């Protein structure tokens, strides 16, 4: 501890407000709940894509707008972005050690996933509502 300034915070105060002081449980559950949501949603999406003529714009947008697809796609995007954000967060926390770089990457990770979610849902809604008056 050598020449460091005296830390007046109690060990409890040093721990509170850190990731491990209670946020871990919510993170753990959110990771599992989004995984469970993706168990039906992700194969549905991938298998549907496999059955679509992907070069055909009209066929693809018709499929996106058909029936309940916009709802399922929005939920898929929500679950994917949340699951991905939580997962990458843990990888950054585990392997990046510089506090400044770690904070920067965590902010970038969270922000990028929110932007992707917003952009994806906007695109789905725009396609879904295109035919409507």
């Amino acid at each position, binding site marked *: 501890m050598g020449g460091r300034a005296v830390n007046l915070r109690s060990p409890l105060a040093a721990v509170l407000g850190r990731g491990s002081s209670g946020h871990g449980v919510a993170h753990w559950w959110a990771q*599992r709940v989004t*995984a*469970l949501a*993706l*168990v039906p949603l*992700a*194969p549905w999406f*991938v*298998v549907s*894509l*496999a*059955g679509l*003529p*992907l*070069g055909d*714009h*009209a066929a*693809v*947008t018709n499929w*996106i707008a058909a029936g309940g697809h916009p709802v399922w796609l929005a939920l898929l*995007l929500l679950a*994917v*972005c949340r699951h*991905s954000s939580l*997962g*990458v967060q843990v*990888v950054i926390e585990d392997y990046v*050690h*510089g*506090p400044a770089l770690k904070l920067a990457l965590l902010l970038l990770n969270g922000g990028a*996933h929110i932007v*992707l979610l917003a*952009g*994806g849902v*906007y*695109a*789905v809604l*725009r*396609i879904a509502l295109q035919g409507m008056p």
Partner: protein
Amino acid sequence: MSTPARPLSPHLSIYRFMHTMALSILHRITGVWMAFGCIALVAWLCSAAAGEGAYARATAVLGSAPGRILLLLWLAAFCYHFVNGLRHLAWDALLGLEKRTARISGRVALAVALTAFLALAYLLFCPWVAAP
């Protein structure tokens, strides 16, 4: 972070390598790789929303040789991460935690993922390759 000489708990270097260790890190690698795939997914959706011209440009990029390699790698990552994710969910339900079971389920997961990858790669790419 300034970490002075502090005892570290023995980790990586002390254990004999097992294939389950490779499967474990592969789950993270495929997960991070798919996080980048989200960018491609959303870009693809946005191009479809923007109209026929933008969509044609996006499919030209995704259908190019490097684009197809990326798509195949994302598909492979998806197949593995999905099947191995089921393994993780089973563990969370306290199923299959025995050492022997976990080693067998690892091999099964790899086999199932590979089969799913080959089937989906065929379905996704073969009609598309044939189309002009």
